[in-house]
């Protein structure tokens, strides 16, 4: 259990309340003492060391911090950690099982859907939310579902292909 950041430093100011919360992260209950103002993205990155979720723009525009909150994609840079208490949060680290990658991860590699990789975790989580609702999306449906996530490197074309690739594989696995 950790307090605010990486290290427990000098005692925090007495006027800052600290609250203990438990969040179900990637299927595992995790507990931390947090200030009420701590952002969810920082809880994940600093307290839980899940640095795959990135903080990009601070204004809910870029989507690098996208995680699934009770299965729904949200931007963890504008949600407070305390709001996540008792909820399920899925991050990129929960995508693969011990032995195999999620088809979305495979699709991103196969179709060259990433370059610098900074947007990739958020992009894949948004894609996961889409495919959980719709396993047969059109290109337009994919573009719309990912329109809350910015990428500066790829031009999106290969990201769309990657999601189509993953959808096809997931459909095949169902049959």
């Amino acid at each position, binding site marked *: 259990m950790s307090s605010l950041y990486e290290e427990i430093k000098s005692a925090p100011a007495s006027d800052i309340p600290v609250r203990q919360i438990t969040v179900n992260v990637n299927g595992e209950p995790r507990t931390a003492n947090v200030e009420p103002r701590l952002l969810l993205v920082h809880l994940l990155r600093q307290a839980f060391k899940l640095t795959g979720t990135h903080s990009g723009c601070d204004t809910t525009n870029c989507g*690098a911090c996208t995680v699934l909150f009770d299965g729904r994609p949200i931007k963890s840079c504008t949600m407070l950690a305390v709001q996540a208490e008792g909820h399920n949060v899925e991050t990129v680290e929960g995508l693969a099982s011990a032995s195999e990658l999620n088809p979305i991860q495979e699709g991103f590699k196969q179709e*060259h859907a990433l370059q610098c990789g900074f947007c990739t975790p958020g992009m894949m989580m948004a894609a996961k939310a889409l495919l959980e609702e719709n396993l047969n999306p059109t290109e337009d449906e994919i573009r719309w579902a990912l*329109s809350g996530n910015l990428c500066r490197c790829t031009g999106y074309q290969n990201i769309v292909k990657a999601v189509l690739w993953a959808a096809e594989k997931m459909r095949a696995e169902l049959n």
Partner: protein
Amino acid sequence: MKLDEVKIGGMGASRRRVEDNRFIRGKGNYVDDIVLPGMLHMEILRSPLAHARIKSIDTSAAWDMPGVRLVLTGEMMAARNLAWMPTLSYDTAAVLATDKVRFQGQEVCAVIADDPYIAKDACGKIVVEYEVLPPIVNPVQAAAPDAVQIRDDKAGQVGNKVFDWEIGDKARTDKAFADADVVSKIELHYPRTHPSPMETCGSLADYDRATGKLTVYMTSQAPHIVRAAVAMVAELPEQNIRIVTPDIGGGFGNKVPIYPGYVIAILASILTEKPVKWIEDKTGNLTSTGFGRDVYLKGEMAMRKDGKILGVRMNTISDHGAFFADAQPSKFKIGLMHSAFAAYDIPTAHMFATGYYTNKAPGGVAYRCSFRVTEAMFFQERMVQAAADDLGMDQAEFRRINFVKDEQHPHRTAFGFLTDSGQYEKCLDIGLEAIGYKNFAAEKAEAAKRGRLLGIGISTMTEPLGAGNSREYDILGIKMFDSAELRIHMSGKALLRTGSRGQGTGHETTWAQIVAHELGIPADDILVEEGDTDTAPFGMGTYASRSTPVAGAAIAMVARKVRAKARKLAAHLLEVSEEDIEWELGRFYVRGNQERGVTIQECAMAAYSNMPDGMEPGLENVAYYDPPNLTWPFACYIAKVEIDPETGVWDVLQFVAVDDCGVRINPMIVEGQIMGGLTEAYAMANMQYQTYDEEGNIIGGNYMDFLLPTAWETPGFELYEVVTPCPHHPIGAKGVGECATVGGPAAFVNAVMDALKDKGVRNIDMPLMPNRVYEALTTGKDVYGMPPVRSGN
């Protein structure tokens, strides 16, 4: 028997990327992911004003906050001779402001605290008293005789001019204009924009007093330059400085310069004896770090009636912000702007350039371009279209008759560059065919029946990529070569290190492919490492599409050096003389007896276990490569757009890209670079700009105002390929990373202008937002300058 090069991941293989294995698992290692024991966090207090004198700074309330370890002011930096630092263009830039603030967002104080929340709170407790000075937000204001002087800190500085600079043959160009049948003119503004990688800048400085070692993890595209700069500025011994660039979340030129935050974090670590992390927020990145463009371009073209271009004049006025911090070869004040018209056979040209200081963010970086080449090519292609229209000639035909022909290479351009190779007409023909140019008139007429305006825009250009050669290209005197070091282990596996630094560009994948091509060692057996100055050989870093042209060449050369030694080992193992040894991919054999041979792996083992008497053991080498010339890729981009005249909204119906970047190492990665670059081109043409209001407030300082295209808006791109190997590059490759950003914008703008040709509109400056297109459509007048602040006219 013979190795299949594609199977071993050599040249031409669309090898899936090695680096993806960590990125898709969320296991990338960006600077903000690094945690050191006892680490402190730094936050910067920035100026809310564009131009003001600092009357007082009171930091006492910040110091009093629990968890605050250090508060730094300009005065404290000055006491250590660190209040100012040199820029990459022989100017100085403030680290923390002492006398004045000169742009909104400038660094004023820094707080180092136990966590970033406390540091941010403490910034809010600092009281700075300012005396407001009149802000200057464009070159016209800067040049006014009564303008307040922005750089009153500089001895000998008069007014706000940074430089005057010219190149070309003025007398001969004047004569060409005197002899011309037709003279065509155009005037443009290339708006200020920002590279805006997804990851902001940041660093983690760790000074160890016991050993005297300073380790800095930072987002730098050029870690070795940083080491040299830190050694000079901070006067620390260079062997005790280690700069490590971990994974970079996009660079696009933004991460070339050295920013105040890096310097302050280093000092803070020295003072606190703790690691100090500084991670810039998005507004900090957008308002204070290297922007791109912001140039006013004016020019004219002299022509014969038959369409032959006789000469070109260019005039540029550039806005450099508060400090002249352009990251560019030192010899050229306005970068490689004079690469304009390199694809065209033009007898003479002249350019005059002037730069000004303004109260705007400094650091005109080459945003995904080789030092102002983007502005050069945009001007060129807008000028070419305007000239074709003035002549009443077909825009494709006008280009065709003025292109440098294939057999004219190497060709000396009017401004003095030497282009190396190309098949310009072939690229154009492929593009025209793909876009359906022949049928366009019918298509346009059909659309007109539906009330829609159709336009087709062409952009053809060759650009100089891969700075430099060392004769002409240096940054602050350091020559622009690059390097590679290759170590073959006894099992035949290898470790390759270079002086470049990938930033999503796939170096870990493609560099191994070059070695596989040269030595026949499977790419999967080669580990590529970059970005750690303690282990990598000295290099000038990655920007200006120089990795493949320079570092890539160094890799081929070092592999050849290794192969030369392996040949001696092979002769020893095969018991023949070296002259009787032949090479095929991955294997030496005895001439005349192909069956009798040894693999490169067997040679590697012999280098450690069975070398001939007198031979130095081991199989490794290093190569420093000084390119004889730049490389000259060519691109033809064609956009077809449809405008809704009711709204001014334009849609891209089709976009065709024909790229000739020489031999492609990894076609998949090359295509990824082109699509990404085209998207940035589309962004600049459409929405991605920064401007300032009259008070010097930045518009575009966060992602609410600074618009980037999403998957929804971004059009699809059709890619085509032509290969003209670079004659002087060891593997025939040319740069490619920037072609699309450089050549792309003019294709979109030319297409919109083509659609508006009959409306009396000659130019709308970027961004071509619907309201600007609508304004032009309804008034029949050009739209000039930048929204919302107009300058010039």
